[in-house]
């Protein structure tokens, strides 16, 4: 997927001005927050469970090479083929090769964010393979000219039922309907015929289990089960950081993932898939491939951002983020929006390609407060900001201003004089009020809020006055 994160400021402004989008966002706001708050109370020791999940992810990541080798051995022993991809282009090459080898004409897909990273649908189409997204949300986006998702769990959160109704009427050539159950039924009928005629199923993987060489897949719709049961070939595309040791570890993480994502105690379908169909079995794929993907992950291992690799892709951080809730997911410009995206995008797509993202946060800490694996997201954003300064990626005006400030701040007498003038000037600007509505030096800053006016004396003057 093309990275549009460098246009964040312009995109965010456009999204704020988009009345339709703002209505849709307001409607969705808080739903996942409320359901999560209820669901986590079902766990007696939620904090202890989160700490255990954090420790589990950390222990795997510190020996990631060895765990990946264990997984590969087990998966291969059960008849799967394990392939590796350094980047999106290699993902596409592997999947197109597999499609050619098995004469695949149509591939049904369960949600895979990595295939978004790779732009896989375009590559398949170019190779003469018809890709069909089967998650209802992803399907709606695909028939809207491959629009990118705006949320990792609820991909069409930015759309309302009227927009979906228009798309269905246009694509399915059936009478337009706006009843949500009827629309869902229509999609079910269209997609069922694709499920039955596809030669290949493509899925992501929520977890890889090293003990058994399995992939664990979580869905509510059942499309994950369809694409891994009906076609003769199944391809799993997933990141190298997704490996966990045992089935017990899977149980631990499954207590956290659905609750953190949608506020469900458990998702409707949770499948643990191992190896290929046996000769006496009537369903299941004859060929199983794993594509284990780096695409920036290997370089984060052991780095100062390593905690980010714990992420289990629940989306709780964006559901609780005031910035995400105001602008939606598209403004972030790549696959992963919200706080997780503000860290993953610079790490995977290049820090210089997403300069605004780590700064697009108030550092309020909501994201880390709800993270099921206790990723210190605000701290990682702060580190990225520091790195931007070190690598001179901040705008020249900002760098010069900070340099000038540092030069003055190192000269106490000059600093005192400067602030003496500044507070008096600002007080005069406020014209006797307690706030300044438009600050000529920073009009953007006062576009959304007022600047509190100083009362006419500097801190040092007041401090001196109060000395006995």
């Amino acid at each position, binding site marked *: 997927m093309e990275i549009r994160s460098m246009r964040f400021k312009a995109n965010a402004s456009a999204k704020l001005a988009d009345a339709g989008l703002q209505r849709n966002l307001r409607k969705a706001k808080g739903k996942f927050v409320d359901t999560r708050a209820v669901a986590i109370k079902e766990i007696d020791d939620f904090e202890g469970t989160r700490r255990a999940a954090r420790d589990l992810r950390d222990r795997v990541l510190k020996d990631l090479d060895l765990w990946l080798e264990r997984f590969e051995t087990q998966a291969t022993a059960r008849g799967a083929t394990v392939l590796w991809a350094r980047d999106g282009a290699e993902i596409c090459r592997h999947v197109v090769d597999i499609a050619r080898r098995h004469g695949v004409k149509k591939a049904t897909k369960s949600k895979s964010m990595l295939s978004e990273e790779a732009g896989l649908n375009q590559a398949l189409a170019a190779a003469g393979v018809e890709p069909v997204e089967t998650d209802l949300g992803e399907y709606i986006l695909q028939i809207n000219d491959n629009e990118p998702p705006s949320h990792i769990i609820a991909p069409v959160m930015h759309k309302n039922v009227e927009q979906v109704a228009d798309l269905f009427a246009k694509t399915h050539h059936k009478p337009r309907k706006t009843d949500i159950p009827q629309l869902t039924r229509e999609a079910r009928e269209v997609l069922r015929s694709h499920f039955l005629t596809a030669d290949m199923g493509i899925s992501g993987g929520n977890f890889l289990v090293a003990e058994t060489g399995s992939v664990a897949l979580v869905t509510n719709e059942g499309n994950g089960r369809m694409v891994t049961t009906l076609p003769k070939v199944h391809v799993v595309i997933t990141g190298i950081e997704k490996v966990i*040791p045992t089935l017990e570890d899977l149980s631990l993480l499954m207590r956290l993932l659905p609750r953190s994502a949608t506020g469900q105690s458990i998702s409707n379908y*949770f*499948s643990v898939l191992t190896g290929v169909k046996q000769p006496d079995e009537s369903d299941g794929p004859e060929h199983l491939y794993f594509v284990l993907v780096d695409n920036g992950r290997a370089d984060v291992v052991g780095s100062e951002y390593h905690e980010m690799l714990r992420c289990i892709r629940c989306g709780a951080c964006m559901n609780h983020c005031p910035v995400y809730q105001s602008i939606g997911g598209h403004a972030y410009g790549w696959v992963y929006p919200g706080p997780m995206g503000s860290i993953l995008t610079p790490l995977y797509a290049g820090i210089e390609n997403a300069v605004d993202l780590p700064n697009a946060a108030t550092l309020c800490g909501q994201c880390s407060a709800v993270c099921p694996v206790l990723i210190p997201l605000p701290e990682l954003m702060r580190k990225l900001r520091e790195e931007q300064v070190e690598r001179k990626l901040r705008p020249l005006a900002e760098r010069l201003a900070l340099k000038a400030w540092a030069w003055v701040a190192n000269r106490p007498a000059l600093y005192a004089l400067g602030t003496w003038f500044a507070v008096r000037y600002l007080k005069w600007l406020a014209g006797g009020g307690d706030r300044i509505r438009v600050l000529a030096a920073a009009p953007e800053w006062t576009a959304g809020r007022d600047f509190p006016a100083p009362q006419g004396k500097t801190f040092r003057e007041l401090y001196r006055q109060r000395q006995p």
Partner: protein
Amino acid sequence: MNPRDDILDRVRRRLGRNADNAKPADTQIDAWLATHPEGPRPAVRGDLADLFCEKSRKLSSSIDTVATLAEVPAATARYLASLHLGTRAVCWPQLADLPWGEAGLTIEPRAALDADLVGITGSFCAVAETGTLALLSGPDTPAGVSLLPETHIAVVKASRIVAGMEEAWHLMRAERGALPRAVNFISGPSRTGDIEQTIVLGAHGPYRVHIIVVSGA
């Protein structure tokens, strides 16, 4: 360098892997896999079958309880009649010997096809903590029967209702050794909330899940 070695080499370099630290790490990994320790678990209180039924209802499944396996066909016929769902169904070959005909049902023991409207399955076990069915794929237990039809009827033996998912893994290790191709945990009917976060049942899989608990089995 091929992608596999390149990726693993970079991970090893970042982790400072060498022959000296690989050995103790491998020993730790062996121990972890051998003991597969559990994480913290919520307490599961009261009767497991009661809890399983309560949680299943919360997930929009319906529940019936019978005393013996022989009563399952009559209970199935009752349920189908109550919703006007006909008298035909496909079932797991594992359940072929139940007296379906006596209950007035026409049941075909085989893998499911798109046209099948009702699918009847057993279950390997069931999880009380979340009201979840655990189904294992196999020649006599094809996975599609719980997926393709609009109605899924699942038979659960009360003796096979366990506290948590961990107990389900214990049972699989003890009774099967290796995992089958597919372990499917099913918690209520298929659903989606993708359009305006409005929950709709029957997205791609069954619209309804009916569970028959056999208390004496």
